């Protein structure tokens, strides 16, 4: 815990790039971007489809969202690759958009990099004014559950 308040923990590059796109956009454009992430969220792979019991339900989202994390083999946390899978209905585009951001920004990173993502990352997109802080809680909850699953799946 050596980071001083003046130098916040940086986001991984892909997530940082998304955060830059959002923070520099007007509120209308932020919603447009979020909709693109919602539209492009990859579907849940066949091996999970139809079996929601194998997925973790994120109750903090206003609409139902299920997620799961796969962690590949490797000798260290830096070598083990994380893949993320989400399932949310089309009637919940905001929730899907949050999931899409996390997928684009974190999928394929190492376990070490995912665990190093700061918990306040969802607050760095300038989304509070566009979607309301209340709704942002869903993304905070998704991130903390992703990190918890990575931690559990890499525990020895």
């Amino acid at each position: 815990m050596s980071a001083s308040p003046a130098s916040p923990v940086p986001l991984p590059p892909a997530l940082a790039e998304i955060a830059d796109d959002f923070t520099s956009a007007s509120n209308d454009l932020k919603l447009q971007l979020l909709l693109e992430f919602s539209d492009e969220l990859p579907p849940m792979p066949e091996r999970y489809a139809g079996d929601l019991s194998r997925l973790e339900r994120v109750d903090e989202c206003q609409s139902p969202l299920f997620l799961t994390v796969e962690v590949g083999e490797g000798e260290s946390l830096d070598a083990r690759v994380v893949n993320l899978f989400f399932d949310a209905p089309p009637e919940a585009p905001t929730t899907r958009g949050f999931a899409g951001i996390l997928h684009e920004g974190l999928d394929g990173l190492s376990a070490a990099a995912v665990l190093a993502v700061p918990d306040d990352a969802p607050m760095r997109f300038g989304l509070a004014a566009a979607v309301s802080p209340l709704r942002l809680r869903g993304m905070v909850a998704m991130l903390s559950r992703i990190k918890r699953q990575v931690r559990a799946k890499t525990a020895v």
Partner: protein
Amino acid sequence: MSKTDSKIDAYAHPDRLVTTDWLAEQIAAGTVGRPDGVALLESDEDVLLYSTGHIPGALKVDWHVDLNDPVSRDYVDGAGFAKVLGSRGISRETTVVIYGDKSNWWAAYALWVFTLFGHEDVRLLDGGRAKWIAEGRELTRDVPTPAAVDYPVVERDDAPIRAFKDDVLAHLGRPLVDVRSPGEFSGELLHMPDYPQEGAMRGGHIPGATSVPWARAANDDGTFKSRPDLEAIYLTEQGLAPEDEVVAYCRIGERSSHTWFVLTHLLGFEAVRNYDGSWTEWGNAVRVPIEK
């Protein structure tokens, strides 16, 4: 502009509800979005849902971003409301039809806020977004760009239809309708099943409140139940009378707006107030009485 519909005509204020057929005719006739015609607004829980596709001619109004004050826990003021409506090409005389997701919770909430400002002609689309889609009707991602008009700055008049915590304390002993789920009413749950924990310190209900979950007033397709079915619930079973002073509440006032609409406009109750502070205020307030 009305059309005979036997279910709607039976309600106390039939001019407050329109059918999907009626709306489709208005769209076909080109009156939607015309300054002297009908303004169509979509009000959803999900801030992006409108953008995924909406009824042609509809504009978005967001309960949180547009209708709530960004700082204080309150609604926008007269100037803020004038901006929200004027920028959407709505004048004081415009007929406004609101629809939304979740059986029109957020549409009813928006209608209730419009009523705080005394907007005269504001109606709900029976069945909301879900019914329109279930009927296979057209959706579009095209966002209309209406010319802005001047909407007058009207002072909000809260007293007739909005109750604050002190009003509820003074009201104890008279009819209170708790429209939350049974688990929230009993105090077992501090929030809606499937919804985020929204931080109430205590569970239970306001003393003397009876539990009538909002959904009992809705059919499976999101439309309102018929007047006889609603009377069986609120008059016969609950023993309420149209002249009673009633306060309805839920968690933040959205589901109770639905019940407020049912009691006021469908059953003709004259003195129903929505307590929008609801459980997120009462369940956190110090030393208010709670029943479990």
